[in-house]
C-alpha cells in the first residue's frame, strides 16, 4: 500500500492572514454592517483597519462563538478589477478573489473554486415610461435564454422565468421560458415604428455580451434595441439582484422591493401555493423579465483550507478556514 506523498495535515492550523480581493468599492466612513461580504465576518472577526474604497483588515475575535477563528486576520482589497484579481490569484498575491461568470470556465479543472447556489437574479427591468405591455411581452417572448446560458455563461447558473430560483421555491419550473417569435412579431406589428425602439442599459461590464445578445434576439422580433453601459436615460436595464434569504417568502419580498414591484402582503406568502400566486402577480404585465439565476463564484488559493468558505447564499464563512503554509 503506497503512502500518500501529499504533505498536509487534516487538523486546522492557527495563524495567518487571508487575503481577499473584491471588485466593489465601499466608500463609506465606516465598514458595512449589512449585505453580503464584509458584514458577514462579524462577530467572529472585528474590523481593525478601515480605509473606505481601498482596504480593510479584520482580526480574529478571541471570544467568538464556537471559539477563536483559526485565521489571525482577513485583509480585503477593494476596487480590484476582475482581471487584476485573477492575476493576483494566479501569482499567489491573493487567496480569495471574485470570478466573473465568464472567467469561471477558464482553467476551471485546475482551479479551486467556491460556488454558491444560484443567488443572483439577472433580469430585465423596464422603466415606467415603457407603458405598453405589448412591447414588454414581445421582448420577453423573443429572448433565447438557453443560448445565453449555453454559449455566454458556459452553462453556469440556471435559465429562469421566475424571480425565485428553484432551490429556494421548489416551483420555479411552473414559470416557462418560451421563445415565440411569431407571437412576438405579431405584438410588435401592432406598435408604431417609434415605439419599437428601446435603449437597454447594463450596469456591470461583465454583462455586456448578454445585453448585446438580447438586442440581437429582439431584432428578430422586430424591435430595435440599442445597448449602453450605465445609461441613465435607458428604457430598460439589465439588472442583477442578490438574493439574501433562503426563505421563499422573505426572498420574494426582498426581490419585489429591489425591482420596484409592489411588495406582496406578508400574510399572503404563507404556503407554496400563495407564493406561486404572489410571484405570478409580480410578473404579470412583464415589468420585470427574469432571465437567469447565477451563482457567486470565488477563486481560491490552494493554501486555503477548511472547506468551502461561503454559505449556499454566498455569505462569507471564514471562521473555519485556515492557511496551510508550504512544508519543508
Amino acid at each position, binding site marked *: 500500500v503506497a503512502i500518500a506523498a501529499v504533505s498536509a495535515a487534516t487538523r486546522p492550523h492557527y495563524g495567518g492572514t487571508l487575503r481577499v480581493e473584491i471588485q466593489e468599492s465601499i466608500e463609506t466612513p465606516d465598514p458595512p454592517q449589512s449585505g453580503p461580504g464584509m458584514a458577514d465576518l462579524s462577530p467572529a472577526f472585528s474590523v481593525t483597519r478601515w480605509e473606505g474604497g481601498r482596504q480593510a483588515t479584520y482580526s480574529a475575535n478571541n471570544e467568538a462563538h464556537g471559539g477563536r477563528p483559526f485565521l489571525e486576520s482577513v485583509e480585503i482589497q477593494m476596487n480590484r478589477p476582475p482581471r487584476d484579481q485573477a492575476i493576483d490569484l494566479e501569482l499567489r498575491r491573493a487567496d480569495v478573489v471574485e470570478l466573473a461568470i465568464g472567467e469561471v470556465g477558464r482553467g476551471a479543472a485546475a482551479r479551486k473554486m467556491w460556488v454558491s447556489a444560484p443567488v443572483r437574479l439577472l433580469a430585465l427591468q423596464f422603466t415606467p415610461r415603457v407603458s405598453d405591455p405589448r412591447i414588454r411581452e414581445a421582448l420577453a417572448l423573443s429572448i433565447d435564454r438557453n443560448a445565453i446560458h449555453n454559449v455566454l455563461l458556459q452553462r453556469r447558473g440556471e435559465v429562469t422565468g421566475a424571480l425565485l430560483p428553484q432551490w429556494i421555491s*421548489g416551483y420555479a419550473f411552473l414559470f416557462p421560458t418560451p421563445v415565440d417569435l411569431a407571437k412576438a412579431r405579431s405584438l410588435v406589428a401592432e406598435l408604431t415604428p417609434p415605439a419599437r425602439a428601446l435603449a437597454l442599459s447594463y450596469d456591470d461590464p461583465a454583462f455586456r455580451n448578454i445585453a448585446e445578445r438580447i438586442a440581437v434576439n429582439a431584432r428578430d422580433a422586430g424591435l430595435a434595441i440599442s445597448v449602453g453601459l450605465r445609461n441613465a436615460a435607458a428604457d430598460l436595464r439589465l439588472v442583477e439582484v442578490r438574493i439574501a434569504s433562503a426563505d421563499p417568502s422573505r426572498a420574494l419580498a426582498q426581490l419585489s422591493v429591489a425591482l420596484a414591484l409592489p411588495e406582496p402582503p406578508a400574510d399572503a406568502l404563507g404556503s407554496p401555493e400563495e407564493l406561486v400566486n404572489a410571484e405570478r402577480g409580480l410578473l404579470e404585465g412583464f415589468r420585470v423579465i427574469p432571465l437567469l439565476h447565477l451563482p457567486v463564484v470565488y477563486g481560491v488559493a490552494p493554501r486555503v483550507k477548511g472547506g468551502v468558505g461561503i454559505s449556499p447564499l454566498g455569505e462569507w464563512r471564514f471562521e473555519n478556514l485556515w492557511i496551510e503554509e508550504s512544508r519543508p
Partner: protein
Amino acid sequence: VAAVALLFLVVPSSPAADDPAGAAREMARKTLAFTRGPVSLTFRNFSSLPDSQLGPIRREMESALGTPDATPPTEARVTLSENSSEYLLVEEARRGDESRVWIASWKRAAPANAMAAEAALDNRLVWEQDEPILDVAFSGEWMIVLAPSRIAIYSQQASGWALRRTIVVELSHPLPRDPRGRLRVTGTRVQVLLSGVICSGTLDGEKFACQESSEPWVLDSGGRDLLLASFSASRNYFDGHVVLQNGSRKTGPPFYSAAAVQEASGLSWLLATVDGNTRVFSSSFDSVASIPGWGSDIAGLGTRCGEANPVLVTRPGDTSEPDSVQAFTLANHTPVPVSSPAPLSGPVTALWPLTSTSAVAVSRDLATGKYRAYVLTLRCGP
C-alpha cells in the same frame, strides 16, 4: 405555450401534509373536484429523493382517480420537487382551455439520530449526533459520549443505547474552534479532559465536578506506555512539554497527537506535529526520524502485528474531503502499512485509543454534517 401557462390558476392552499401519501391524497381530492372524470397522469422528479419515492405517490393517486380508459379529457402532470425546508408535490392539470395548479407539501424529515451498523474493514458505527463528538468510551453496560458542552451517559438496552444522564460542562471561556477532549474511564470512574478543564465523577453517582485546570493529559497507546502532555488551552494542540514514564520532563515541538510504538529496537514515540510531519522520538525523547504524508491524528494500539505494535493514522487532507484510517507498524523508524485504508465519509475530527486492539474515530459526515463515532478494530493476521 406562454399564454396557456399564464392562464394557469393556482388554487388557494391547504395546510402542509404529513407525508407523501397525505400529499398525494390531497392532490387526488382536488383533482377529482376539478375533473369529475378520468385523468391521465404523468410524473416526474425534480427533487433529491430517489425516483422510487414516486411509486407510492403514483399508486395513491391512481387508486383515488382510477385508470383512464380511452383518451381522458383531463391531463395532469405531477412533479415531485423540493426547497430547503419542504418537499413539494406540484400538479398541473389541464382540461380543454382550463388549467389548474395545486401544490401539496410536507416537511423534510431529519434523519434518525442514532444508529448502529456493522461495516466492513472492522469499522463499526456506534453513535451519530449533530454536536461534535470529542471522544467515546465504554465501560460494562455504559457508553459515554463527550461533546464540547456536555457528557452524555447511555446504558445498553435491548433496543439500543438509552440516555441515562447528561452532565452539562460549564465553561468560563469558549473552547477553541477545533475543540479536543478525552475520556479516561476506569471501572465506573470517569475523568474528562477538555481544553483548560478537568471533570471527574462516577457513572452511577450523583456528582460530577469540573474545574479549570492546567494539568497535563495522559496519553496512552492502548497499552502500558504513557506520556503526560500539556494541552495548549486556547488552541487545538499539545504545546510540546511532556513528562515521560520515568518522570523526566522533555520539550518537543507542538503536536496534535501521539502514539507509542514498540519496534524491535525498542520504544519509540510518534508525534504528529503541527508542521504537518510525524516525528519519531526515541524512548529518551531524542528526535530520530520524520515521517511525511500522514494526517494530524494518530493512535497507538497495544496489540502486536508481527514485530511491532501498530499505529492508526489518518490521511492528510482538508476538512472538506473524505478521510480514512490506516494501520502501520514501524521497521527501523520507517512506516510499513499493515492494513488497507478504512474509508470514512468525512474528515476525522478525533482519533483516540480505546483498547489494545481498537480505537475510537470520529468523523464529520460531509453529506449530513453529523458527527459519527466509529470503533475501529484491528485484527492482525496469524
